[in-house]
């Protein structure tokens, strides 16, 4: 297990990424964050042979190259990565997206609020929960 990476953030929008990182930073959770700018990068992160296992993946759905649902499907289909918690963090509150994400094995589905305070609270709550409260299988 790589102690270096605890949160894998998959987010193509630089502004959203910055706001997310800032929210995590306020809770001192930003040091162990690895940022991927598209789905392909995220899949590479797991495929490079290093066997890195983050404590949680924060996944946007609308991504360039490989979209979020596809990333989710592949992670949950791979025995090595299927127990990694994946939290979908997206702007879409469309019912079909939510249903498909849970059907593919998403552990949570969070709609990014427009309101910054609410957004920051959601992100930091998610980070705290999965990093500090959740007990993954060893």
């Amino acid at each position, binding site marked *: 297990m790589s102690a270096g990476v605890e949160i894998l953030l998959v987010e193509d929008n630089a*502004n959203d990424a910055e*706001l997310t990182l*800032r929210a995590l930073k306020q809770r001192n959770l930003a040091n162990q964050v690895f940022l991927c700018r598209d789905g392909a990068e995220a899949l590479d992160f797991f495929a490079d042979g290093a066997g890195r296992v983050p404590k949680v993946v924060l996944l946007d759905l609308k991504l360039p190259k490989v979209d979020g649902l596809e990333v989710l499907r592949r992670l949950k289909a791979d025995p090595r990565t299927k127990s990694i918690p994946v939290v979908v963090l997206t*702007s*879409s*509150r469309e019912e079909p997206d939510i249903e498909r994400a849970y059907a593919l094995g998403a552990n949570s589905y969070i709609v990014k*609020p*427009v*309101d*910054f305070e609410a957004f920051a609270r959601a992100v930091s709550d998610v980070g705290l929960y999965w990093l500090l409260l959740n007990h993954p299988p060893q």
Partner: protein
Amino acid sequence: MNWSIERKLPLFVTILLLAVAITQLTIGYGEVRQASRALADKRLPLATKVLADLFQAGQGRVRITALAKDPAIAAFLRSGGRSGRDAALAAMRRVTTDTASNTGLELRDFSGKLLLHTGRFSVADSVFVSPGTDSARYGPLMRRDTTLFIAIAAAVGSGEGRDAERGGGIVQQVARMSLSERTRTTLTGLAGGDVALLLGNATGDPWTDFARIVPAPPSNVLNSRTPVRYERGETMRASAAPVPGTPWMVVAELPSRVVSAPARAYLTAMAPLALLIVIVGALIAWWGSRRLTRPLGDVTHAAEALAAGDLDQRVLVRRDDELGRLARSFNTMAEQVSRSHHHLEAQVAQRTKALEGTNAELESFSYSVSHDLRAPLRAIHGFARILLEDHHANLEPEAQRLLGVIDQNTRRMGQLIDDLLAFSRLGRKEIGAAPVDMEELARAVADEVRRTDVGRTGTLAIQIDPLPPAHGDRPLLRQVLSNLLQNAAKFTRDRAEARVEVGSRWDSGETVYFIKDNGAGFDARYADKLFGVFQRLHSTEQFDGTGVGLAIVKRIVQRHGGRVWAEGKVDHGATFYFTLPTEER
């Protein structure tokens, strides 16, 4: 019962034939009866006349008249009974012998004293008949027990003055009537067939039918000179006539049943014939109507099958008349229906495909709006906040105020996007259909509204009346109640005593639910604008909101098949009404 034409037509014809037959029989019966009665009325007086003539022409009167003028009788009486006795007796014996058992002949003086007597029959020692002077006179019929007898008398001399003192007297013959079945049959035969003949006194009893003594016919029969009806054991038709020269009358009578016998015979003969005609007519009508309705039935069945969706249904054309034309026209029509149906189906499929495409586009559009419109907004809001938080010290108060304005508007924009997406989702969502307890739903929503109610200075009272259940989509109906109650709470915020009532009423076949408040109300002139998207009648400073809530209410109610409207007055509260189907349509 199925009143098809196939049944109605024969029934109609049968009823018609029956009516004709009954009318024919009734009229025929009446005519025959009339004719036989007229015949009887001619026969009866004829019979009485025959009998009357018979009795009038009796030989007795002639003989007794001759005897009263016999010189031997006159000589005997003139001598005061002293001489000529044998000659007188001989004259009397020429009329009635001493051995005659049914007749008695007497010679008396005017005082009634019996002088001479021949014949063995005698009734009493008296004069029965006041004698005629010129000719003998018949007396009335007389009765002793079961015997009837006839007296006939003639005067010898005048019986007055000199004749009374000497030389006068009375010749009287008394004869027993021989009553026997034979006499009766003979006379009846004389009158012809069934006619019964009766003889009796014009003034009353006794009467006889020549076989036995019978009661006298009623006076209306005796007094009438035309045939009349009367009852004697059975109904009779009778005619009476006096016998000239006697105090007697004869009556000829026929039982009414004999008079009407030909009419009955007519009925007996004609009724079965009429029945046969009716039956044959009914059978022909039944056969004809079957021939007529079967092709119609074929076309009807085919049309029903066509209506049920079997577009390949055709009728076999068997004939060349109107029905055949109908069958051909039906086939042509079915052909066209089938063709246009297939055409329509193809068109529907094409349109559906196009619509599905549009729908997919719309979905991806709202997905994009949902995702891409919010991201930049979040960035604007986020970085403005960061600027305020991290660089607070470097910013002048005016710069801070302006950042506050950005903050407010981005929040509002976010709300607008959310509401708009919710509204557009409604158009695509399937509407569930199940019974919904509106009262329970209203209570739940009211609790939530009370919990989230903020910024109020006075009190808020929400009253829920008993509400009938509705039929529809529970989450969506919850949304309707929620939006309307939230509105009611919002627009009563500045009231000292805010009152909200949720109720219903039954109005011409549908349930009308209403939410009534005593809040700010609205200008009734703009009532129809309330339900438009982004339509607001109050400024954001007065009451916050995006103007989508009522549009959502309207869309949900309409998609349930209901209506929504509002009444209100500025500062005097508002009432929102909506209708919902009470059961599945």
